[in-house]
């Protein structure tokens, strides 16, 4: 039933083939077509701007006060593109292969290849917009190596690449808004997707200032609503990041795939107390010079500098001599969790490991290390009050990126006609684990170059549809449902805040569907999630009303969706009896603790169909076939 609609032809010709044969909408007709975009991150902003440039009527919705706040802004490291400017043997195929291998062979060859293929254009586009990437003295672009690959293909703008890429996209979006091609709805939240005769036809949105419920119709809807890592409550994501738009689509028939594939970032600041609202990410670059260790002795309470060398366990260097402290994110995160679970965690809450710069400072001097990491050290000191020059940093893994998301075909269309998902909101290109510096790339590629083309192929059939009225029964029903739900939140009048439930859910997810999972744990997790959900609907307390600014009401909606998505994630993790990428099932590991993939039985993408509230979702398998690449075992020994 699932058809990914991969174009014919050899791998390197597929996208070209598609573009040569897809249907187009002529400029005069584009004016008659409305498109809604949800989100203004590095996928939504380019999609909205590009569609506006093309001549469609675009409406863009986002909950923040301005489009420039979207969480792409926080990405630090860089963006990959196989430009081969460094003449170090990089090319599209290598980039494709690294991505596919990094994802543990759980993504489509065709999609992943296209990602690498278009990567070069993204850099051209960004530079033309005035994105100030790092340069060499001669004036050409600089690159660095990132995420454990052997070539230098990462472009960067200091430690704020995401910000600069996003601001580039924001600038072109602002231009389109100024020209009147795109209409912007800030402080608006999508509450429902409207589906008419199997096609996405609009949304119900709430104006977060007045609380008014609005109807907006369109010939196609693009979800660029980001990832759902905030389901763990403590994550590197923004406070407002949520799964609601995607979940509403899921409830209306869009499948979700690979939902339990969540990347935990190993170098985040540990939780210091129950009040904590997020975990700040410190760039992975720190692992280039920092050495990770824990005391050999359980519960060793000594000040780190007082622990002698022979009583320290540099566990990454010990276990992975080839990569050492630079082992991939999932391995580094998992190893840290193992140490913490074994009672060797450090810090006041015993929930961290040390990242020590003592040796690097000895070797290169404090000044040189300051040049390399000064801003990160300052940031660390600002937040924790401790200086990494004087004592080791404390780090711990935190939920960071969700590889899973709405299932999409090659055109980035979900299983609902006319509903597209782009960027982190979809599942497609990263497989079971994302390669460092590929997330900015995927978001950009989807938004700038793919969806503006593929959407034409669909909209070419809509030119005779005419303006879609919003006074139809489907819109009535969707609005009714949305208002009903808001009223329900307020009417429960229980005792606990939405924040409380979010925190509880986060704990359950971290322990049961977190860095590593096992069957029993997941089963228990599902039980706990259900209990919590039950409790939520009976004891929630939302002060205030609907038709006013009400952050608590917004939170309640998001947490309610997280509570449902959580169970789906658990089912997804439960179903997959193998370890692959970020999905580490404790039952499936080699003797020395490495992930054990099962290509014979699980070489598929799990796409889940919604079957009703609280009901077990239905699994659809999209078998993955590898025509060009032979899946190999990831080894970082």
């Amino acid at each position: 039933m699932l058809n990914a609609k991969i174009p014919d032809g050899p791998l390197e010709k597929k996208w070209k083939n598609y573009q040569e044969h897809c249907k187009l909408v002529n400029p005069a007709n584009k004016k008659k077509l409305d498109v809604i975009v949800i989100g203004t991150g590095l996928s939504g902003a380019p999609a909205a701007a590009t569609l506006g440039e093309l001549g469609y009527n675009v409406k863009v919705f986002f909950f923040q006060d301005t489009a420039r706040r979207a969480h792409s802004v926080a990405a630090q490291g860089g963006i990959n593109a196989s430009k081969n400017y460094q003449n170090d043997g990089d090319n599209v195929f290598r980039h494709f292969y690294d991505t596919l291998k990094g994802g543990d062979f759980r993504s489509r060859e065709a999609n992943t290849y296209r990602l690498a293929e278009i990567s070069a254009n993204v850099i051209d586009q960004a530079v033309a917009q005035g994105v100030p990437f790092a340069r060499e003295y001669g004036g050409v672009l600089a690159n660095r190596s990132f995420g454990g690959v052997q070539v230098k293909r990462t472009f960067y703008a200091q430690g704020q690449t995401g910000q600069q890429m996003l601001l580039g996209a924001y600038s072109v979006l602002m231009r389109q808004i100024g020209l009147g091609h795109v209409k912007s709805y800030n402080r608006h939240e999508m509450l429902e997707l409207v589906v008419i005769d199997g096609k996405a036809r609009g949304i119900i949105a709430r104006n977060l200032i007045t609380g008014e419920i609005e109807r907006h119709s369109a010939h196609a809807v693009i979800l660029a609503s980001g990832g759902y890592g905030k389901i763990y409550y403590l994550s590197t994501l923004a406070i407002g990041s949520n799964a609601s738009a995607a979940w509403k689509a899921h409830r209306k028939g869009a499948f979700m795939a690979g939902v339990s594939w969540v990347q935990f970032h190993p170098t985040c600041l540990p939780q210091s107390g129950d009040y904590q609202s997020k975990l700040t990410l410190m760039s992975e670059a720190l692992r280039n010079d920092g050495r990770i260790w824990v005391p050999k002795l359980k519960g060793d309470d000594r000040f780190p500098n007082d622990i002698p060398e022979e009583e320290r366990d540099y566990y990454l260097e010990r276990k992975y001599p080839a990569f050492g402290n630079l082992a991939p994110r999932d391995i580094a995160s998992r190893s840290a969790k193992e140490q913490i679970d074994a009672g060797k965690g450090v810090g006041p809450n015993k929930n961290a490991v040390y990242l020590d710069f003592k040796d690097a400072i000895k070797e290169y001097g404090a000044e040189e290390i300051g040049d390399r990491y000064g801003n990160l050290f300052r940031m660390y000191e600002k937040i924790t009050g401790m200086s990494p020059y004087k004592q080791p940093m404390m780090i711990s893994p935190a939920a960071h990126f969700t590889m899973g998301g709405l299932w999409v075909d090659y055109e980035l269309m979900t299983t609902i006609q006319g509903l597209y998902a782009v960027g982190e909101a979809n599942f497609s290109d990263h497989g079971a684990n994302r390669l460092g510096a590929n997330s900015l790339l995927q978001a950009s590629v989807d938004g700038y170059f793919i969806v503006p083309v593929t959407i034409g192929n669909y909209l070419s059939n809509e030119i005779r549809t005419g303006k879609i009225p919003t006074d139809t029964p489907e819109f009535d029903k969707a609005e009714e449902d949305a208002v009903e739900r808001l009223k329900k939140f307020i009417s429960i009048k229980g005792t606990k805040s939405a924040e409380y439930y979010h925190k509880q859910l986060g704990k359950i997810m971290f322990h049961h569907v977190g860095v590593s999972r096992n069957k029993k744990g997941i089963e228990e997790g599902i039980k706990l999630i259900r209990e919590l959900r039950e409790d939520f609907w009976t004891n929630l307390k939302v002060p205030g009303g609907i038709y006013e600014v009400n952050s608590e009401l917004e939170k309640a909606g998001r947490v309610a969706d997280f509570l449902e998505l959580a169970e789906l994630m658990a089912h997804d993790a439960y179903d997959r009896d193998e370890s692959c990428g970020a999905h580490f099932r404790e039952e499936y590991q080699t003797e020395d603790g490495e992930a054990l993939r099962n290509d014979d039985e699980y070489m598929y993408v799990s796409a889940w169909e919604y079957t009703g509230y609280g009901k077990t979702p239905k699994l659809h398998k999209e078998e993955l076939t590898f025509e060009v690449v032979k899946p190999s075992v990831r080894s970082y020994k």
Partner: protein
Amino acid sequence: MNVTLKVWRQKNSKSKGHFETYKLNDLNPDMSFLEMLDVLNEQLIHEDKIPVEFDSDCREGICGQCGLTINGRPNGHHHHTTTCQMHMRHFEDGDTILVEPLRASAFTVIKDLKVDRSAMDRIMQAGGFVSVHTGSAPDANSLPIGKMDAEDAFDSAACIGCGTCIATCKNSSAALFTSAKITQLATLPQGEIEREKRVVAMVDAMDAEGFGSCTNTEACEMECPQEISVTNIARMNFEYNRALLLGKK
């Protein structure tokens, strides 16, 4: 630690605001200021009161969405910080802390501590871009840009659009914010073609939004979380005067 908060409460943009006093006990000094407000809100919810509305998103100092006036200064008594990066350990046990929204007549209070900063978006819409549409870009290396120019452009481009500069200016001037974008694009060859048009349009937009004149007190630079330099303002003036002299107005 314990603190007493005096928080600006305002039901909506039309109503008159006032201060409410709240007491918070047993706070952890490692909390950020916003996490302290989270604690306050939890407390208010339990007391059947309406929680305090305030904006925040990334809480790591880069998105620019948060921003409060704390004890009479935007983002509190530290230079170069966002509100989310202000921690309670920088306050004394027993302090009384006054919390107001960011103030400027172009920033309407939406509710409590939330303000509308969309005027800043409109300045960007007037010209804060290079008019390049998707797909039309030449190869990235076809336009060499000196390392120093790229770094200078980055320093200007690092602006997070938080509005601190405006709120800290006694004239509520948006000069630092506007000039940072103008300077970024004036420093780079990509911005050359629309150079005059951009500066004139953005300055006009800045004025139309009701922001005041820059009188060079340089307070903005002192508070800017990204340490954007006031030399950007000088550059904007240069670009504007140049456009005037070239008759591009």
